[in-house]
Structures are given as C-alpha cells and as structure tokens.
C-alpha cells in the first residue's frame, strides 16, 4: 500500500492531488508538445507553471513516461552532454499529439459539465 501512497504530490492548498494525478499523462504530453525535455526539467516546469502550487514527484513522472513510451505516444533519446552524466530526453510522437488533442477536448468537456454541476 505504501508504494501507492508514496508518490502523492506535495500539494500546497487543499486541491485534491488525486484529480490532478489522473491527468499527469496529459500534462506531460502538453509540455512535450512544446519542446523535448528531460525528467527533472519536466518536474521543474510543472512546479513553475503551476506557480508553486503543484510539485510532481520524480517517481510519478517516471511511471508516466514509461506508460506513454509503451503506448508509443513519446520516444526517448540520450542527450549529448559533454560533461556530467547523460540526460534522457523525451519527444512527443504524432500519435502523442493526437492523444494530447483528445485529452484536451475531453478535459474541456469535463470542465464544462462539472462547472455546471458543482
């Protein structure tokens, strides 16, 4: 059970982290649709873009990346850093872009309906 609870994000005010976590794959696809990124860069960007409200644990990100890669929505390649350790970059595939557009449409729809009901 602990491994299920462990990756819960450090979330500041009382937004339910579960709701956001259910959309992690879409969030990762959204970021990668702009540019290729490596793991820590994705975490950092999510933290900054959410104005420090949402902090994604690396382990949760790695799970999401493996999932997306298995579905061929993203691919990965090693960077050519001259010094220090190599970084692994992720790039969105054409199928990934399609999936992202669909996620976005689904989210817009859900948001509209939930706004009407809650």
């Amino acid at each position, binding site marked *: 059970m602990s*491994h299920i609870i462990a*990756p819960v994000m450090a979330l500041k005010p009382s937004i339910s982290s579960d709701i956001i976590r259910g959309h992690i794959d879409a969030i990762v696809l959204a970021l990668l649709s702009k540019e290729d990124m490596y793991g*820590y860069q994705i975490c950092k960007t999510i933290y900054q873009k959410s104005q420090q409200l949402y902090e994604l644990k*690396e382990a*949760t990100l790695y799970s999401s990346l*493996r*999932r997306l890669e*298995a579905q061929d929505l993203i691919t990965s390649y090693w960077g050519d850093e001259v010094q*220090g*350790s190599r970084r692994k970059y992720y790039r969105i595939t054409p199928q990934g872009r399609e999936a992202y557009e669909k996620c976005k449409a689904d989210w817009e729809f859900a948001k509209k309906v939930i706004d009407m009901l809650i």
Partner: protein
Amino acid sequence: MNSRIQKHLDNVFSGFEDTQRLRDFKEEVAANLAEKIADLQASGLDEDAAFREAIATLGDIRAAYAQGEDESHPRPVPKNPKKRKDSFNPVAGMSFDPFAKKRRREEDAGLAWGILLSGLAVYLYFGFSNIAGGFGSWWLVTLFFYGVYVLLRGGLGCGTLLIATAVLIYTGTKRWFLMLLGITGIVMVITSLVKKWRER
C-alpha cells in the same frame, strides 16, 4: 556527489536483476538527481542536506521501474533476495524422514529416490522371488508401515512410493500393479514439474 548518488541508487535497486534497462534507468535518475541537488544547494542548503532532501522527495522509483518492466516483459524481474532459488528437483518438498528439518527435505527426497531406484535395480538384476524369499518378508511389512507413517506425517509423495514399493515387492510379478505404479510415478513427476514451473 555523483558517486554518492550512484551508491544510493545501487542500494535501492540491489534486489533487481542487472540489465541494460536498469543501468539506463539508473543513469537517467542519477542525472536528474544531480541537477536537483545542485538546485537545492543554490537555494541555500548545504551539500548533505540537499542530498537528503532530493532523495526524500524522489518517491518510489522502484515501483516506477517495476511498472515499466511489466509492460515490456511478460514476467517482472524483481526477485526477492531472501527467497533462495532452489535447484531443480522434481521431488522437492517430499519428506522422507518426517523428523527432518525443512531445509533437509530435498536431500531426504533424493535419498528416498536413491533407495527406491537401487532397490529396483537389485530387483531387476537378481530376479524377484530370490530376494524376497531370501531375506524373508519382515522388512516388507516394515517398509509398508513406515510408508503409512510418512504418509500420515504429510510426506504424501514419499509415503505413497514406500507403500507402493512394499506392495509391488509383495505382489511379485503382477503386471497391473507395476503399471499402476508407473502411472502414479509419472503423474507425481508431472505434478511436481507443474508446481515448480508455477512457482517461478
């Protein structure tokens, strides 16, 4: 710092099979950790505190790694280091001596098979009635009741075999019983093979 990260990751994944996939994953995590630690140090933490903070907020990377393993391979690799992998033995777990400790069971089963096989060899070599008649039948009765005893103590396979051997020797050349014994033996071996296979 890089060697400290490496050491930590080696420790975290110590129970996992050393594959190229694992080495790649560790390299990826290490590079990200190094940058995170550098950021934490830039925000004012000392090196040691930055390391500990970065590790503490990492999350369960073992689960993240194992998850990918499930998707790319039919069988997950993570193995329990405490669980000893037994060498192949179709009669493992069959207790010959009911007082034997659990870890001795395999040897005992091997012993039982050894006695049975050599008994069979002697029987085939000298012919049956000579042996049984020559030694008298008291040891057959002993073998039979020892078989019952082992059976009652839970050594199902060996108990059955001991009883079967006693009955086989007693009934002499009855072919139907020989066939029954042969079939029982084959069924037992197949059952233990299937069990072994499932345990892997």
